[in-house]
C-alpha cells in the first residue's frame, strides 16, 4: 500500500487532480464575492467583520493553490495550504451539521438549492481530499530529480 501511494505517478495524479478540484471550486467565486459572503454568512461561523475579506481572498487562494498544485511549484507549501483550507472547510461543515443548520454548502457553486444530504456528501469528499493532500505532502518531494528546475527556483 505504502509503495503504491508513494509511487511517483500516483502522487502526481493526485496532485493534479487536487489542483483541478481547487480551481474548479474557485472559478465561480472569483468574481462573485457578494454571493460567497452570503454563503459564508449562512454558516454563522465567523465574526461578520471577517466575512467579506474571506470572501474576497479565499477563492483566489484556492485558485492559486490549485495552479501551483498542477504545476508542481511550491509543492509542500501549496499542499499545506490546501490541507489547511480543507481542515477549515471540514470544521465549518461539521459544525453546521452539528448545529442542525439547514444550509447549502457553498463549496462549489453558489446556488442555494442544495440540501442537507449534500453537506454530508461534501464532508466525506473533504476527508478523501484531505487524505490525498497528506499523500501529496508526504511523498510529493520523494523524487528530487523529478523537477530540478523548480528546486533551484525555490532555493534562493
Amino acid at each position, binding site marked *: 500500500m505504502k509503495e503504491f501511494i508513494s509511487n511517483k505517478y500516483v502522487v502526481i495524479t493526485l496532485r493534479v487532480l487536487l489542483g483541478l478540484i481547487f480551481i474548479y471550486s474557485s472559478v465561480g467565486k472569483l*468574481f462573485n464575492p457578494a454571493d460567497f459572503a452570503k454563503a459564508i454568512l449562512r454558516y454563522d461561523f465567523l465574526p461578520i467583520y471577517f466575512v467579506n475579506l474571506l470572501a*474576497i481572498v479565499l477563492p483566489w487562494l484556492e485558485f492559486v493553490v490549485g495552479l501551483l498544485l498542477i504545476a508542481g511549484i511550491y509543492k509542500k507549501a*501549496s499542499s499545506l495550504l490546501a490541507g489547511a483550507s480543507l481542515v477549515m472547510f471540514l470544521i465549518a461543515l461539521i459544525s453546521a451539521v452539528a448545529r442542525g443548520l439547514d444550509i447549502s454548502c457553498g463549496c462549489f457553486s453558489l446556488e442555494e438549492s442544495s440540501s442537507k444530504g449534500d453537506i454530508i456528501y461534501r464532508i466525506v469528499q473533504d476527508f478523501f481530499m484531505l487524505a490525498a493532500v497528506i499523500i501529496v505532502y508526504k511523498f510529493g518531494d520523494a523524487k528530487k530529480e523529478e523537477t530540478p528546475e523548480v528546486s533551484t527556483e525555490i532555493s534562493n
Partner: protein
Amino acid sequence: MAKIYKQILIIIAISAALGLTANAINSDGVKLVLYKNIYALDTAKQKKSITDFVNDPFDTTSNKKHNNVLSGQMNKEGYIEPENITVELAKNIFDRNALFVDARTKEEFDSLHVKGAINLPYEEFRSKTYYQKIETMKKYNKDGLIVVYCKGDKCEVSIDLAYEIARLGFTSVSIYRGGIKEWKEKGFPTEP
C-alpha cells in the same frame, strides 16, 4: 521548514493581492469589512403577524402606528434599520395594505409587479439629491408599513433602496428578498 513558511506567506500575499484587485475592479465588488449581516432574517420576528391594523400608505398626518412588529432598532446614524422579511410576513402585511416599493427598472416594473406597488428604480433614486428624495417620498406615511423588493434571487437593489428610504426617516421599512419571483411563484396578487 522556514522555507515552506516563506512560500506559504508568498502564496497568501499573491492571493490577497489578486483578490483585492479583482474586488476593486469588480462592479459587483463588496466592502472589505461587513458591519452587519444584511442578509439575515430575524426568525423570532417572522413568526409574528399583524392582525388588527390597516395601514394607510398615504396618510401623512396620522400617528396611528401598527403594533411595532415591523420596527427595527434605531441605529447610531439615527435611522431605523430595515429588516428582512419572509414571503409569509410580506403577504401578511400586504393584506394590511402595506406600501410595496419595487426597486427594479421601469421596464421590469411595467411587465409585472406586486399589485398596488409603486416603482422607485434604485439607480434613479440614488442619484437624486436629498431634497428630491424627500420630495418624492413626502406623500407617503412615515410610520406606515413599507416593503421594498426587487426581482428576487441575487438582486440587492431592494436592500440599498430600503436603506435609502429608512435614512429619510421612515420607521418601518422591510426588505422582501424573495422578490417578485417568489411572490409570483406563490400565486400572490400581481399586476398587470
